């Protein structure tokens, strides 16, 4: 057992897979010699050498296109897109190429690759370097989408993503890189499509993802202490596939559903889950499904504005307690 940071867990997860499988190669901007702009890939270049760990030019289309080309021949590339916002620069590969390949080739070719990217806000980087784009990737059939919230999940989900035969978008949260957590020694392999109940509770279900997870947990403690509301907090972890089993079982038990989302409000991931819950467990609900999200706005650079925009523990607790006490809004 060792205490690892979220950033060290990224390197550990990649190393575990590169050690195991020679087909795994890793490429991205400043990922090798510099160890990544967030220092999440330190040591990989030294350990696996320049053939397998490569610095690229600032050419996102070429990075993802080359990763896919290699994947078409059976390699298992991990490609980094430094900031998730830059996915928009190379979205053709994410939206049109990776996810359609197996389908259009009659299953002859697959696209077993992982795109790791620094997602999310909180670092005062402004409108073009802070977005939470998990919902952009969730909407494309053919992609799998995960977003871990702890060092342990980073290692295990990275392994699962690399071993999966489909393209996986792996959202690392850039404001979680410094977070620490216990990670057992030895090989760790998790599975995609599984949510985790982090805090059992009986009164309400709160779903959260990535940086919203620690905030939802903090809110749940405050709700229990100050309002006697016992929340079940679930880390969704994987948007595609989605663990509807765990989520809906919880909603049926508590009768209340809240989502805490960092993505902007319209078409956020929670809207999809709300729709599924309304379809499947409507008669088990005791109140409205409520989504707590970043508003439908670009993110500001100024610190106090950014703090107002992204949901925090106080806002989550306040909203949940008001709704649970019978007020709609």
């Amino acid at each position, binding site marked *: 057992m060792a205490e690892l940071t979220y950033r060290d867990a990224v390197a550990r997860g990649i190393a575990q897979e590169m050690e195991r499988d020679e087909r795994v190669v890793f490429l991205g*901007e*400043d990922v090798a*010699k*510099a160890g990544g*702009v967030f220092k999440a890939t330190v040591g990989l270049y030294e350990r696996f050498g320049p053939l397998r760990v490569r*610095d*690229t*030019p*600032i*050419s*996102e*289309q*070429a990075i993802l296109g080359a990763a896919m080309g290699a994947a078409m021949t059976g390699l298992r590339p991990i490609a980094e897109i430094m900031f998730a*916002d*830059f996915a*928009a*620069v190379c979205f053709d590969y994410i939206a049109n190429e990776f996810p359609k390949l197996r389908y259009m080739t009659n299953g002859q070719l697959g696209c077993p690759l992982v795109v790791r990217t620094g997602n999310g806000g909180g*670092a*005062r*980087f*402004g*409108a*073009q*370097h802070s977005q939470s784009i998990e919902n952009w990737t969730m909407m494309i059939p053919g992609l799998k989408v995960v977003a871990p919230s702890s060092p342990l999940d980073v290692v295990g989900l990275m392994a699962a993503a690399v071993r999966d035969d489909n393209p996986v978008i792996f959202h690392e949260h850039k404001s979680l890189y410094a977070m620490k957590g216990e990670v057992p020694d030895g090989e760790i392999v998790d599975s995609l499509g599984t949510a985790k109940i982090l805090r059992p509770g009986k009164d309400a279900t709160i779903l959260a993802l990535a940086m919203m997870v620690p905030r939802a947990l903090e809110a749940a403690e405050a709700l229990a202490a100050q309002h006697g509301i016992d929340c079940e907090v679930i880390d969704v972890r994987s948007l595609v596939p989605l663990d509807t089993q765990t989520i809906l079982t919880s909603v049926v038990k508590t009768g209340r559903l809240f989502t805490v989302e960092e993505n902007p409000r319209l078409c956020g991931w929670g809207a999809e889950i709300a729709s599924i819950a309304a379809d499947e467990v409507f008669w088990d609900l005791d109140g409205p499904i409520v989504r707590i999200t970043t*508003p*439908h*706005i*670009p993110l*500001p*650079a*100024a*610190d*106090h*504005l950014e703090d*107002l*925009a992204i949901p925090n523990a106080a806002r989550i607790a306040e909203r949940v307690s008001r709704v649970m006490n019978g007020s709609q809004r």
Partner: protein
Amino acid sequence: MATNKKSAARAPAPASEQTPAAVPAFTREEELAAYRQMLLIRRFEEKAGQLYGMGLIGGFCHLYIGQEAVVVGMQMALKDGDQIITGYRDHGHMLASGMDASGVMAELTGRRGGYSKGKGGSMHMFSMAKNFFGGHGIVGAQVALGTGLGFANQYRGNDAVAVAYFGDGAANQGQVYESFNMAELWKLPVIYVIENNRYAMGTAVTRASAQADFSRRGVSFNIPGEQVDGMDVRAVRAAGDRATKWCREGNGPIILEMQTYRYRGHSMSDPAKYRSREEVEKVRHEQDPIEQVRARLLEKKWVGEDDLKKIDAEVRDIVNRSADFASSDPEPDPAELYTDVYR
């Protein structure tokens, strides 16, 4: 190069085979103006670095120290109505275009009086009054946008020129070449200024660029290009003069590779382990753009030490006032979260 006959310009010679253009001298007034502007940028950036260290500036802050001659020399070649667009290392471009130091500094500290009311931050500021079109965080995006500025000039039939600045690293983005092709095809008045400061974050040019002579990056599109000593403000101005003339005469786009150097890390969080202290010191001592002008001014006895001290004091005063404003101006109103998203 750009002043050559058209046929010569169609097939630019490699920079290594060009006869280096003699560097035309500046008048006393020009030297003084360049000195003051470059010093303003340097002192401003030093102050921004300090405010960052004090926690008054958050997020990103990419300093322009070392590269001052590029924007100042280019600005001297421009005329009213010409447009400027750049990436995220943009403070120098804004000051050179005449934007107010206090407004820029207050944007860095995220205050109400900042050019974007604190919502843009270091990388995203604009001033239509000064024809400064940003301030863009996505590497390379400004190259296509600058091409569009040139398109609008051609459409309106004015003789304005658009200057699109980007880095050696940005030069490896695909949209740069889509833009080059279109700009030459349509003969758009765009000057592509590639600020080759030898690094893109931690990656040296030679580790990222198969063709590191950036003046040749337009060859297959027939766009002429020039390598320019970007540490010598006179050379920059002269190249800018040739380029603006080329564009205004309707010849289409042109590429200027400015060979320059950034003294500081890529951004404030960069320990710059990818290069040696000696390398930085060598450039500082042998090529510093401000020292070059200072030495010439003194050597020609155009000014005395006292005159320079006076300029220093004036510049420091502007910078100090900008810092005071940027630390005392109130934070933006929470309601600003929702303004200017739509109209």
